[in-house]
């Protein structure tokens, strides 16, 4: 399921990242790669703050929906 469906506090493992090459590459440079464990710090109407590789990344809904967990 896409990351957007998660609630604050949940921890999951990334399975796959979709979207154009460019978007995927950018996400991977920020630490979003398959197999990585991430947790949701905060959620508001689809926009998320994700804890990944020891930092917090804010993602809007359109970006978060490309990350499958």
């Amino acid at each position, binding site marked *: 399921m896409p990351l957007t469906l998660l609630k604050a506090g949940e921890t999951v493992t990334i399975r796959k990242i979709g979207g154009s090459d460019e978007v995927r*590459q950018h996400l991977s440079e920020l*630490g979003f*790669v398959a197999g990585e464990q991430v947790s949701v710090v905060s959620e508001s109407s689809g926009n998320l703050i994700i804890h990944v590789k*020891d930092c917090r990344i*804010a993602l809007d809904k359109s970006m978060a929906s490309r990350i499958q967990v």
Partner: protein
Amino acid sequence: MEIKIALAGNPNSGKTTLFNNLTGSRQYVGNWPGVTVEKKEGKLKGHDDVIIQDLPGIYSLSPYTLEEVVSRTYLVNEKPDAIINIVDGTNIERNLYLTTQLLELNIPMVIALNMMDLVRKNGDKVDTAKLSSELGCEVIELSALKNEGADDVANKAIQLAQNKTIGNRPSILSGEVENAVKQIEGELSGIADDKFLSWSAIKVFERDSKELEKLHLASDKKKNIEDIIEACEKSMDDDSESIITNQRYTYITGVTDTAVKKGRAKGELSISDKIDKIVTNRILGLPIFALVMFLIYAIAMGGWSVSIGTAATDFTNDVIFGEWVPGFFDTILGALHVEEGTVLYGLIQDGIVAGVGAVIGFVPQMLVLFLLLAILEDIGYMARVAFVMDRIFRQFGLSGKSFVPCLVATGCGVPGVMASRTIENDRDRKLTVMTTTFMPCGAKLPIIGLIAGAIFGGSPWIAASAYFIGIGSIILSGIILKKFKAFAGEPAPFVMELPPYHVPSVVGVLRATWERGWSFIKRAGSVIVISSIIIWFLSAFGTVNGHFGLVDNLFEDETIVTDEYVQKLADRMDVEIDDVNAMDASLLASVGNVISPVFKPLGFGNWKPTVATITGLVAKEEVVGTFGVLYNYDDSDEELGEEGEQIWDRVAADYTTMGAFSFMVFNLLCAPCFAAIGAIKREMNNAKWTWAAIGYMTGWAYVLAFIFYNVGGLLTGEHGFGLGPILGIVLLAGLIYLLVRKGYQPDESAKSLTSVDANA
């Protein structure tokens, strides 16, 4: 010999702090050629022959953002003598990603492991010796915020640069991928620069467009290489770019597993996470933000005892530029026997001192506001504000990152426009630069005060409506402009790193405050001095009954100012005969008279408001000062109030309700002051876009003021139905059409993250 050292690292890794520690105040700030990415360069403290080049904060060397392209071009083409790679010790894994790419460049490099104080506090352990041997590169511990270790880092970098020591590059790639890249290296040998052979090979493997462009490969070479890549992709079942990314992370995990011991279990929430849970909360986020903003404005701009900003500005206006500076110049001019009433005296006192003083008066208030905003930024709250506001701004086609510039612009448009730099997407940034000065800045408040006081009995709703019109203009402009091809497309997806919260550093905050304040003062010293002199010249000189000269002096000569002439002047300038004064004969009045028909349809087609609008270009608070002069306020008994309280009656007599409101709307929205126009020009970095921005703002102001005056006047019964109201309704309909029409539909590729293509 001169040594060039490049400073590279992730955003928020403490790069700027280290740069400041290393160079002190000996910095040169400019732009990278052709783009609006800030370029900072400085000489190392105590070493005049060592130049530190601060590269923009980047996550990788792939060519997706302007910052990445700029950094990469610099590293590959300029070949610095050494690189200082600053790595955030609390976030080693992600930061080492860039490190693995930098290592491929074969340039002497030292890693500065920053935030070691925090690492220790978190209970983490980093074995720097192990890290160093794994990466084949010196690692030095650093705490930039506490200014510990900066000298060691610099000395090491100089030493490496002098000996040209390049460490043993670790093998990051493995197995098939390594083989494939080796094969490509073979294909490229003799074509690519020897030093960058392995870098080139990896980039070619990733099908990096910039590198391929640079290499100009023959078609058979291209085919050979493509075969190698495809074979590898097939057996790994992934695309080449992802393969490399995964290999990098696999390598990094291997390194950190041996060299880093985390004090906290994976997934456990840090203090920053806990704070974020509250301040970015779906329900609490906005109210908390509103409260923070209220406190800031209470301190910087309010009228209470806590409002130190207001107190400081009042002091500057009333005492420093009200008494001290004019007094000081009076003494000097007196000693030089320059009498009041001469041209030189007028030029210095009325032109330069009064003009610059009017602008400098706002500096203390602005500094307080900038200080508070810098604290919020340093703590890390500003990044959260962008996140909280993104949800709302996205509805109107703007990104949450556009909100921070608008916020700063409520203090002053100049730093507001400059704050748009954090927006990566070129279209979004241009759109923000074009609209952000719609916000009523500190200098526009007196205009609002004058109109509210003179016409609307001091109703607080007028000020509220001014902010509403400002925000509304930004939102409506966002919707309308987004439908044009130049701006079309969704706002760039919101992806932003939220730095950990930390206690603000005094030096850092003061430096940020000063940089913003100083850029404003510098403009006050250049653009504003010149334009003050021009406005002064136009208002002081004129032709009185055929004699050209200082109008004040000519008016005292009764042989020149005959009753007949006064009558004629009163008729020409449309004023009561008792109100005729020297100003009416000035060049400025004549200029105003020529231009004023332009504003007739807006309800203020009289030369006085026209002239006030022109002087508003110098600085918006000049509008009220000009009204003071033009409405004959006699300053012999007391200083004109900031909102021009003494002339309210006379102003009220000259305007209809909607005419005055339309005047306010036009002045709030039209081309900003020269200082802000200068900032827009710098951020647009392009004359065409600068003029487009000024034209758009003025056009928008004209249309809106036209609608308010004509349609508003019809609704309030101020004037009957006629050509004006009809045109107003037509314009309103046109505006609504622009808002709801189906705009230009960009193809998928336009919805990209980056601004590179738009600029390349």
